[in-house]
């Protein structure tokens, strides 16, 4: 009995130790594999830095709306008509209707649904800024700088539906964007402050482990985050992190600070995908010529679109 008890106690202890060891082993394995995926060893450039060279592109709906959103019937919407009909027998009306200016585009002009790229899906606007964001959304067609082919700013340039190329020099890195031919130079060496506010920001980069960290400052207040009217002021400060997570993926994170518009810093995060097509090139999207008729056609003596005199 005693003996049995003792042996059973021993058995329990042994079993406990085995379970504990097993758990530790499992735990260790899990941690190891986790850190293994985090610590993906990227290819190196000749000077020993993580090699981020390549043509990259986001594959998400962030340029439509960085926050989570259901599908919408049009890039621009018009206010819903009031519900009509007699009480108790109400005729159905649209909740959202495409704005007449984009309606001929049909299914091409809609907005696909998408998950948020914003951490926690909340953009911490100050109270006044909530109203301005809504106003921007409602007046998207007149206000979005993308429509006029203006330089897209940062971080928006990263997740527009166009590729961009990282050209990694030794003390400068060029980020070449297809949209509007915008470029920015990331200075890895020490440079003085920007002499003036800019569209694409003033970028200072450094390596932190295998991540390229870029502090972007000196913005003007004229760029947006997306086609949903999310905006910032000239106090914008973006801290970007580009981290290779496989041969063909970068994890992109950007921390957004702007004390004039937001109540706290917030963060977006998304993978970027390498354009692996053989011989892929960054091509031109010189959209200035695409928007001239819209911007200036009505201003001259003659409208080139019709050949007629303007009134």
């Amino acid at each position, binding site marked *: 009995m005693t003996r049995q008890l003792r042996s059973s106690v021993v058995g329990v202890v042994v079993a406990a130790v085995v379970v504990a060891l097993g758990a530790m082993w499992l735990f260790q394995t899990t941690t190891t594999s986790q850190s293994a995926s985090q610590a993906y060893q990227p290819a190196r*450039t*000749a*000077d020993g830095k993580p*090699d981020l*060279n390549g043509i990259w592109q986001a594959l998400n709906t962030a340029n439509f709306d960085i926050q989570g959103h259901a599908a919408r019937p049009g890039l621009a919407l018009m206010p819903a008509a009031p519900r009509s009909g007699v009480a108790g027998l109400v005729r159905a009306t649209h909740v959202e209707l495409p704005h007449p200016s984009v309606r001929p585009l049909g299914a091409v002009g809609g907005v696909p649904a998408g998950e948020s790229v914003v951490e926690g899906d909340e953009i911490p606007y100050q109270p006044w800024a909530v109203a301005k964001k809504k106003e921007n959304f409602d007046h998207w067609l007149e206000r979005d700088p993308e429509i006029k*082919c*203006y*330089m897209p700013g940062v971080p928006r340039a990263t997740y527009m539906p166009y590729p961009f*190329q990282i*050209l*990694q*020099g*030794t003390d*400068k*890195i*060029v980020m*070449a964007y297809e949209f509007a*031919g*915008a*470029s920015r*130079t990331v200075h890895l060496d020490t*440079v003085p402050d*920007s*002499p*003036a506010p*800019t*569209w*694409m920001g003033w970028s200072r980069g450094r390596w932190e482990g295998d991540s390229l960290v870029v502090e972007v400052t000196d913005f003007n207040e*004229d760029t947006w985050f997306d086609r949903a009217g999310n905006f910032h002021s000239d106090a914008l400060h973006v801290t970007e992190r580009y981290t290779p997570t496989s041969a063909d993926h970068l994890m992109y994170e950007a921390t957004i600070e702007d004390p004039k518009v937001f109540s706290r810093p917030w963060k977006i995060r998304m993978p970027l995908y390498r354009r692996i097509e053989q*011989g892929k*090139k*960054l*091509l*031109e999207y*010189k959209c*200035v*010529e695409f928007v*001239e*008729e819209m*911007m*200036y*056609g009505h*201003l*001259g*003596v*003659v*409208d*080139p679109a019709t050949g007629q005199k*303007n009134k």
Partner: protein
Amino acid sequence: MTARHTVSTLALAVFIAVAIATSGAQQTSTAQPDSTSPWKQTTTPWGDPNLQGVWRYEAAIPLERPARFEGRESLSDEEVKESQRLEDEQAKQRLAGAEGAAVGRRSVAESPIRGNEYNSFWQDHGRPRQVFRQTSLVVDPKDGRLPYTPDARKAEARSSARYGAGPYESYLDPDTGERCLTDGVTALMWQGPNGGHNRIVQSQGYVTILHEEYLDRRVIPTDGRSHGTIRQWFGDAVGKWEGSTFVVDTINFIDRTNYEWASIFTRPSETLHIVERFTRTGADAMEYRITVEDPTTFEKPWTAVIPITRLADGTQIYEYACHEGNYAMTNLLAGGRVDAAKRPR
């Protein structure tokens, strides 16, 4: 924002009468590096010759050879000395805020452009412009002149007469520069008196040239690929290294402007073929050689040799937000309407 190349190199050739020579103290030809210089070509970590930095054309050599230097490829010592004196003097005058002849430019009265052109405040031609012995940038044909076809010469005359004079009836009437598109690839390395800086950044398999004016950018692969088939404003460029010379071959240009360019020698056409050779000849000096072949505009290929200067470390190029701030277009068209209303019917 307007009148970007009122002072085209062609105009410079006409107006800067004496400013075409080289100082005795300076190297006599860009093609010959100073043999006493301790400079050695450095390489990137991956072994390519290093051309990185911010470069600019800072000389005062006319594109085409002025008539008074006919038959002469280089200047005499006396002419070099006089040219240097003049450049120094004009640089001093520029700093003092002078305009017109005192700084080697047209006075308001002499200008063919109504309202004149940009004043010196907007122009940056170097500090002072460097003097070289070359009498023209064009070295081939031997006469130093662009071999325009008869049709192109007529178009050149038409576009010159029109430039700055109009009429400006729509946004298609200003030239591509004023429309914030581009002034083209041909003169990219040596034009842009208000944004002529070029930053060269090298990465493995690529050479990138960022030209300040119009944000012009060329990403040139050096990985041995052949030309693609897509036509673009900046064509399709492929690069290779021949010794320490970077050679770029560009075809597949497109001209979507349907327009006679103000500086017609820079216009792209579907038959344009450009071969460029970048050879660093010193720590701060590069010979840029360009051969232009385009049967649409020229009777035969022509070659120009252009000395390029590397600016001090720490020189930046800045964001040239042209289209974003192109109030000039709106104003120009408003002016065009006023002009049209005044015109007798």
